[in-house]
Structures are given as C-alpha cells and as structure tokens.
C-alpha cells in the first residue's frame, strides 16, 4: 500500500472519529436541531433573519425581527429550564405544575401591587417588594412539591399533579377572581423594554439568571450532589449526602425560577388571565430538558444544553406560528418532536443502532477486502 493511500485512510478514520465524537457530545442534539431550523427558515424565507431598528409608539428605539422575538419570548422558558434540569437530575421526574405555579406567582405580584383595588392609580408598594413576596410564595409551593417528593416519596409527576390541578384556581382565588390591571408604565419595563435600551428586558433577566446558576454550579456542590442523588439515591446517602434534602432543595430552586418567569409574564401584559397565562409551558420546559440530551430519568445533566434547548423550542414555536400554523395546533407538532427525541435517545434504540452501524461497517470492510 502506498503512503498516499495510507494517509487517505488515516484522514478518513480521523474524520469519522471526529464525526463520532461530535455525535456523542451532549450539545450535539440541541445544536443540530437549531441548525436544522435555521436552514429550514433560510430556505423558506430569508427575511426571517432580518433585524430592524425601529421606534415604538413612545418614540424609543426598539430592535424588531423574528430573531429578537425568539430570544425575548424564550427568556421565561430558559429560566424554567434551569430549575427543571436540576429537578430532573435529582429526582428523576419532572415538575408539571410550573405553568400553574407561574400563574400563582404572577397573581401574587399583582395582588401586592394593587391591594384591594383591581384598577389602582398608583402601585401600593415598590415592585421589588412585590417580586420578593412572589419569590417567597413560589418557594413555599416549591417546598410543598419538594416535601411530597422527598419526604413522602411520591413520584414527582404525580405529586406535582396536585398543584397542576389546583394552581390556577389558587391564582384566581388570590385576586378574588378579579383581573387587576396596572396602568403604571414602569411595571411594564420588566416584560417589555426600558426606554432607551433597544433590547427587551427579559433577555437581560434571563442572562442574569444564567450567570447566577453558572456561578452557583461552579462554586457549590449542587451539581455533584444532585447528580449523585439522581444516579443512586441510597449510595449517595451512604456517602454522607442527604438525598431528601437535595431533592427538596432542587424543588425550592425551581420555585424561585418559576417566580422570576411568572413575574416577567405578568409584566409583559401588566395584567393576568388565570386560565391562559403560561399555558402548556410545562411541556416546553420538559421538552427543553429532553432536547438538551439530559436523561429524563435523572442523573447527569448539562445546563448549557438545556438552556440552548429552551431557545430551540421557542425557535420552533415562532417558526410554526410564522407559517400560519394555528396556535392551538402547535402542541401536536411539538408532541411529535418529543416522541422522536425520546425514542432516539432511548438506550434500547441506541444499542440497536450501534449494532446496526457495526454490522454495516463490518460488511463494508469485507467488501473492501474482497476487492483488494
């Protein structure tokens, strides 16, 4: 065999190894999905990526375009994905009450700001106070879920089913079933944009949350603990970790994330609609975690991948809306995506695919030998 042939073979091998590495990377799935969506939009309508600097009705500069919309609207989802990833990792289940809990958080914010009058001239307290109270309430509900899961050992999805059913009703009850509206424009800054800054504020809030979680994961044992509890709860207990406490803690952290997301959501409209706000967002949050290549059965997780997954989902939603898919029909498409994803990532399917690939490679090798 000549050297050039050898070189070629080596190159080929290294290239296939590189491809294999790429595919095995956890970030591969969300990034590949994102690329597919980008390509699809590029082919169908390149104007999808146009970003324009315009002025809103108040005369402030605002960037507009589908991309900005995607990044803006994915903020809540990205924040939820952070908490959901932790819960998934530690407890091996998902919290399906996040949408209802967001309604509660939003309702609390409005109740504190409005007092008893549903249409106040001025806000009763500062926004920060309202936000902090909402965080506190959300943490309590998170703690309730966490308690059921960690101490009473109920499957997470069933335990959170309780709040999923009751949450929106509780949200309505907090405001006595009225629909308060806040007319003060400064409340809307958090969901829309601050005058003078062309980017929507939720983007910044989401980035702040990401930085916080990055710092927390870097400097605390949260990642190690939740992963080890998720992989094997009893052996981590033998190693001196309190698995119940870790599970409980992840649900409380998710509570904080829910409060932030709920706050953004009510700030967008300055009002609330209990049965519609954050509807079906639990599906998106779970999908974000799954799309990030994280095992839904708990254990290891990759926070970056989950967050990218959240943006991919919003990209998908916006794309579907742009192509005039009825907003009520979107769940059907997403469900198909979920099923394809979970089926592809199932260990059994992967194993089968692996053996198939090996067989193919072997048969190819045989053919090569015969020719030689």
């Amino acid at each position, binding site marked *: 065999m000549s050297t050039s042939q050898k070189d070629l073979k080596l190159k080929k091998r290294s290239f296939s190894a590189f491809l294999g590495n790429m595919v095995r990377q956890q970030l591969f799935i969300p990034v590949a999905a994102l690329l597919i969506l980008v390509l699809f939009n590029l082919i169908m309508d390149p104007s999808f990526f146009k970003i324009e600097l315009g002025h809103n009705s108040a005369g402030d500069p605002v960037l507009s375009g589908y991309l900005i919309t995607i990044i803006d609207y994915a903020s809540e989802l990205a924040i939820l994905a952070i908490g959901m990833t932790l819960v998934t990792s530690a407890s091996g*289940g*998902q919290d*399906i009450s996040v949408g209802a809990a967001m309604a509660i958080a939003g309702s609390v914010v409005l109740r504190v700001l409005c007092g008893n009058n549903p249409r106040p001239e001025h806000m009763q307290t500062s926004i920060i106070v309202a936000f902090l109270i909402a965080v506190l309430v959300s943490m309590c509900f998170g703690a309730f879920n966490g308690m*059921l899961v960690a101490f*009473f*050992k*109920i*499957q997470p*999805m*069933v*335990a959170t*089913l*309780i*709040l*999923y*059913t*009751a949450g*929106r*009703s*509780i949200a*309505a*009850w907090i405001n006595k*079933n009225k629909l308060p509206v806040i007319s003060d424009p400064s409340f809307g800054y958090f969901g829309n944009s601050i005058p003078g800054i062309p980017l929507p504020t939720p983007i910044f809030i989401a980035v702040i949350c990401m930085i916080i979680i990055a710092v927390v994961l870097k400097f605390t044992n949260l990642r190690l603990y939740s992963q080890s509890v998720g992989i094997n709860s009893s052996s981590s207990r033998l190693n001196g970790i309190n698995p119940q406490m870790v599970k409980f803690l992840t649900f409380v952290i998710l509570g904080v994330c829910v409060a932030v997301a709920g706050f953004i959501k009510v700030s967008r409209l300055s009002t609330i609609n209990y049965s519609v706000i954050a509807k*079906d967002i639990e*599906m998106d949050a*779970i999908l974000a975690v*799954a799309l990030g290549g994280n095992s*839904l*059965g708990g254990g290891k997780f990759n926070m970056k991948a989950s967050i990218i997954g959240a943006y991919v989902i919003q990209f998908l939603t916006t794309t579907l809306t742009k192509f005039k898919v*009825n907003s*009520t*029909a*979107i*769940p*059907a*498409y*997403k*469900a*198909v995506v*979920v*099923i394809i994803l*979970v*089926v592809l990532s*199932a*260990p*059994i*399917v992967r194993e089968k695919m692996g053996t198939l690939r090996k067989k193919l490679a072997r048969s190819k090798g045989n053919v090569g030998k015969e020719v030689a």
Partner: protein
Amino acid sequence: MSSNTNAAANIKAEKNLRKRAGLTDTNLLLIITIAVFVAMYALAVFLLGGGFTKPQTFFNILNENASLIVLSCGMSLVMITGGIDISVGQVTALVCMACAVYLDRDVLHPEEYAGNPGNVVTALLIALGIGLAFGLVQGFIVAYLNIQPFIVTLAGLFFAKGMTTIINATQFNVANEQFLKLKEKRITVPGMGANNKLGVYVPAYVEIGVIVAVAIVIILFILLRWTKLGRNFYAVGGNNQSANMLGINVRRTKFMAHLLCGLLAGIGGFVYFMHAGSGSPSHAGGAEMNAIASSIIGGTMLTGGVGNIAGTFFGVLSLSTIKNIVASLGLDEAWWTNITVALMLCIFLLLQSVILSRKHKAKK
C-alpha cells in the same frame, strides 16, 4: 391436655394469619374507599337535604360520570402495572370531535355528502380505532422501548389536543338524527322512581353510557381477579423482576395494559360523546386528572401492584359526590372543584405513602 391447647392455639394462630392475609392492601384501601363514599353521600344528604335521598340524584351522578368511570378503569389497569396514562382526557376530546365531524359531514360538507349523513356504527368504530391507535403507539413506546410512561403519554396528550383543533377548532352540536335517537334513549330502572312536585310518578332512568360503564367495570373486575392476564398485571406492577423470573412476559403485559387503557379511552370518549352530543376542543378537560384522582381514591397505588376496579368505581362516585356538594354550596364552582379535587388527591397520596412506609417498617 397440653397437646389439645397447643392445637387450639395453632388453629387460633392460623385463623389470625388468615384474617391478616384477608386484609391485604387492596382490601384495606377498598374498605376505606367505600367508607369514604358512604361518608360523602351522608354528608351531602346532611348538607343539602332531601335532593340526595332521591334515587334519581344518584343515577344522575352515574349519568354524568359514565365516561369518567370507563376512563378511570383504564387508568387503574395501567396504574396497577406501575405505569400511568395522562392522555385519556384529550383522547376523549379527540374522539368526540372526530365522531361529531363524521356524523355531521352532510352539514359540514354539503357539496360532497348532501343527504348522506354518517352512521353511528362507523362513528363507534372511529372512536374505538382512535383509542386503539393511541394505546398501540403509547404501549409500544412504553413497554418495548422502555421509556417513562409519563413522558410518552404527556406527548400523547398534547398530540391529541393539537389534533382535536386541527380537525375542528370550534364547538358544535351534532344534528344527526340516528345519533340523537341513541343519545336520547333512556333506560328506566324499575321501582326506583319518585313522585314529583305535582304528584306525578316519574320513573328513574339511566343512559346507555351507564350500562356500558357498569358492564366494563364487571368485565374488568373479572379480568383482574380470575384471568391469567389480570393476575399478570398485579405481578408486573408488584415487582417487575420477580415477575420476569416467574416467566411472565413483562413487556407484553405492560403493552397490553396500555393497549386496554387506550381502547377504554376510545370507549369512554364515545360514552362522553353520547352524553354531551357535541364536539369541542374543551371537552373532558382535566379528565385525566379526575381519572387519576378516582383511581387513587379507589385504592390503586401509584407504585403498582395494588388496586381494585370496584374501588375505582367507588372512587369516581366519591369524587363526583364531592363535586356536587361543592357546586351546590354556591362556591365559584370551576375554581373550587379543582381545589377540592387536588386536596382529596393530596390526602389520599399521603395516606398511601404512610401505608407504604409502615409496610416497609413492618418488613424490617
């Protein structure tokens, strides 16, 4: 003499043992369920007075909840094998919409089907087909690809939700004559009527759906208690691995449970359709919740292996009695019903958790 006492003691011990064996988790939970139902009904009579003493009130609860009984039975089957299926409510909505659109095709598409309305038998087949399709796909993915049932059926829920609005996004009442005849059919229950305010004797009645639901309860009760498949459900739910060691085909059993649950969702959907007589995307909203709650109240354990169809039946009745109480107390019903259902679910989940942990302690 001593041998005699010994024998007596032995017999006594054996009797005790048998007594204890008789009071398994299943039976204990069933007794609790029936007690809860009786208590609820007594409470309703106490709070709301005479209305609840009339047999027709009871039959109305049955009429309204016939589809929920069918759905809950399917849910119980899946839960006994240790799984869960949260798609049943939306499958019901999908079945209603599909049947409604099919039956009224001469109204919706007059240029194609004028004077040629759909017939009820085909509508029933459509309902069964939809249910079976969901059961097949979900069952296959859950059992053979080994993916968490919650995720799979959550996707099923959203798929059914989307499909319902794709078929038709608005509510409409079915005008098909053949169907209306079926819908209006009343079956009188002999000897249960009562005199109304004018003193005219009004016989008590149930709808066809109730007959279907009761038949399904009886069939499934027999299936679970006396057939091989039914016993396998319990074995697989109780302990996956030991069931496997016993030579039970675990995957096939799980698959069968999901398949049956899907089929029952189809039947339940048609029963709901017969009661409501319309198609709407908001039909049976939250039915999966109610079905899970009924099963849990009925003594089916989430961990699998424990459960009883009779309990589920009483679970549905307890739940709907509570709802009736809440509604007639004049509270903002939609909101308060949800909160009470969640509260009941919570209480019973905690009860199960306590029973389980006590059992673990007893074993140790």
